[in-house]
């Protein structure tokens, strides 16, 4: 399976180090969620992948080979700063962009018609981009990224400024593209969305990747937690070894097992609770991406030596 490998990218603007050894890979057929605060280096990384910006060091490879202009032409790109010709008709513009990526006119036209249909902007083909609402301009921008049938998708904040319906359409499109075997990288500040949509997530801080993995992988913590809706924890939790109450409000109790607890401690917890009274809900509590993100991003700035070791 080919994959897009971003390998140890460095980039400095003047005195600002935008990227420090940025490394990750996106496999064919997966959606990769790219998160991090503003200025962490997401856009810089994407722009280097597209070749609009030159890196100081490092390499970007596709299928094991460094990206060249012909490979880059197979990337669908949505820049952070949206950009289309304001006074050009939607249809003409998409056909033009498809042709710039090497498509024949007839194929470009067919593709433009298909994508404007899919994205619900078919009746705006004859309008200048300028006359469209922001949401529709955003859809045209996505169509511009997809119209040349790219093999790789790199989308910088594709969801910003979309209404909920458009978010669903966009999510569906990204899933389809991944299912068709294409690697999809997107960045977003909407972490619930990233959590729902991504197969893998990378969290960046200060120009390097600080957490990387599948959602479940990232959310797995050494200390397992459960939420119990039933008899108050004080009545039964003390009976279970290696388990303590973390929080308790009314009928809802959150308990945590430490690392020494046996693998089936969840069954022991449930039985103890049932013994004390009826249990209406019993669920595993895992940190959300939002919590993870907050932990990672607000952690103290690492010193240079720590970073070198990481």
């Amino acid at each position: 399976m080919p994959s897009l490998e971003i390998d140890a990218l460095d980039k400095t603007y003047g005195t600002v180090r935008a990227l420090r050894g940025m490394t990750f890979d996106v496999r064919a057929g997966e959606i990769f969620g790219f998160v991090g605060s503003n200025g962490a280096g997401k856009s810089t990384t994407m722009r280097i992948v597209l070749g609009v910006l030159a890196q100081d060091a490092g390499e970007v490879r596709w299928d094991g080979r460094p990206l060249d202009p012909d490979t880059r032409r197979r990337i669908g790109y949505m820049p952070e700063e949206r950009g289309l010709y304001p006074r050009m008709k939607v249809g003409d513009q998409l056909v033009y962009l498809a042709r710039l990526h090497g498509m024949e006119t007839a194929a470009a036209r067919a593709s433009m018609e298909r994508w404007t249909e899919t994205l619900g902007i078919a009746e705006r083909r004859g309008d200048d981009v300028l006359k469209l609402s922001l949401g529709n301009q955003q859809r045209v921008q996505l169509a511009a990224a997809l119209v040349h049938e790219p093999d790789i998708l790199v989308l910088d904040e594709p969801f910003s400024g979309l209404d909920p319906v458009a978010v669903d359409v966009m999510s569906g499109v990204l899933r389809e593209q991944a299912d068709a075997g294409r690697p999809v990288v997107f960045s977003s500040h909407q972490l619930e969305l990233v959590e729902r949509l991504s197969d893998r997530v990378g969290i960046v801080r200060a120009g390097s990747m600080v957490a990387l993995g599948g959602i479940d992988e990232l959310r797995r913590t050494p200390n397992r937690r459960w939420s119990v809706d039933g008899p108050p924890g004080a009545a039964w939790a003390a009976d279970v070894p290696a388990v303590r109450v973390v929080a308790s409000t009314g009928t809802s109790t959150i308990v945590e097992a430490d690392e020494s607890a046996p693998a089936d401690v969840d069954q022991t917890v449930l039985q103890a609770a049932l013994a004390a009274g009826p249990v209406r809900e019993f669920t595993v509590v895992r940190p959300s991406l939002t919590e993870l993100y907050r932990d990672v991003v607000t952690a103290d700035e690492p010193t240079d030596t720590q970073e070198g070791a990481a």
Partner: protein
Amino acid sequence: MSAARSLGSGAAIRLVAGRELRTRLLSKGFVWITVAFVVIVVLGGLLLKITGSSSSAEHVAVTAETSSAAASIKASAAGVGVEVETQEVADRAAGEDLLRSGDVDALVVATNPSLDVVVKQTLDDPLTSVFGSLAQQLALSSAVTQLGGDPAAVAQDIATAAPSIVALEPEPERDAGQIVAGIVVGILLFVALMNAGQLVAQGVVEEKSSRVVELLLATLRPWQLMAGKVLGIGAVGLIQLVLVVGAAVASALGFGVLDSTSLDVGSVALWSLVWFVVGFAMFALVLAALAALVSRQEDIGSVTGPVIALMIVPYIIGISIAPYDPENTLVVVLSFVPFAAPFVMPIRQALGTADGWEVAVSLGLSIALIPVLVWLAGRIYSNAVLHAGGRVRLKDALTSR
């Protein structure tokens, strides 16, 4: 994937240029400016035709008593280079009616003992000199008669007496048609180059300010984008100029205003197209590079100002000095200097005062500079075009990377 992926530089540049051509040719601005120019040029031809044929002949009325002086009036008019048509009226009253209605410019009521002329308001300059010389002649005739001579013979001698002049540095011969052509060519080239140059600068900034350049440069090299834009807009400008120059030539020939000139209208028209292409190539490259330094339409002026001055100065000199003093040193020098030559040399050529070798040298100098400009502009453009936000300093754009 299904679609073909190879896109050579030639194809890429053609696509970019094709987009420029399509969007600009269909734009209202282009259509109106072109139509306006064609109309102006045709109307100008018509105007020349009208003023030329009705020529500015002066109309002088003579009464029955003074009708014998009609021949003398015409003769002295010819002597001072004024065309006069005479007509006889029944009496003074009838003549005054014609004066009031403006059908005649002057009415001669008596020649003896003095020359009496009636006018509506004032006597215009040409007729003043005609009647002045006529009055002197009449006075001379009566004196000659009193002295017993033959006034007719004396008049004949006077009329044919003329100094013989030898010029050490004769001014090149040029006629009114050539002067008009020189001015028209000067104006047309200036407007066409200015217009097309501004389109290039605006086009570059439009892509920067709308950020579409980032999307384009994900699939194009910067130089391909710049080359396509310059070629596309150049073609638009050339098409416009061909239409206007074509209209000018057609109306000049159609209205027959060139009958009395040695102007070679075909070659002047062709040369103005050649100079447009050369001038456009130079100015478009410079303007594209400078425009890439800024990100907003409002800032274009701050970087293109010096270039615009580089266009205006030779234009003013070319059009205000060359037609009247084609051998002026400044004019001749400027007609060789690249950037100024496209404005000045075509005027000299229209006037018929530029030698073949001069044109060749001037053209060669300009063309030789183009590869340097391509390199320089490509470098500045590539380094600056993706810098959004503030203005990029020229030095940084030249030295970075």
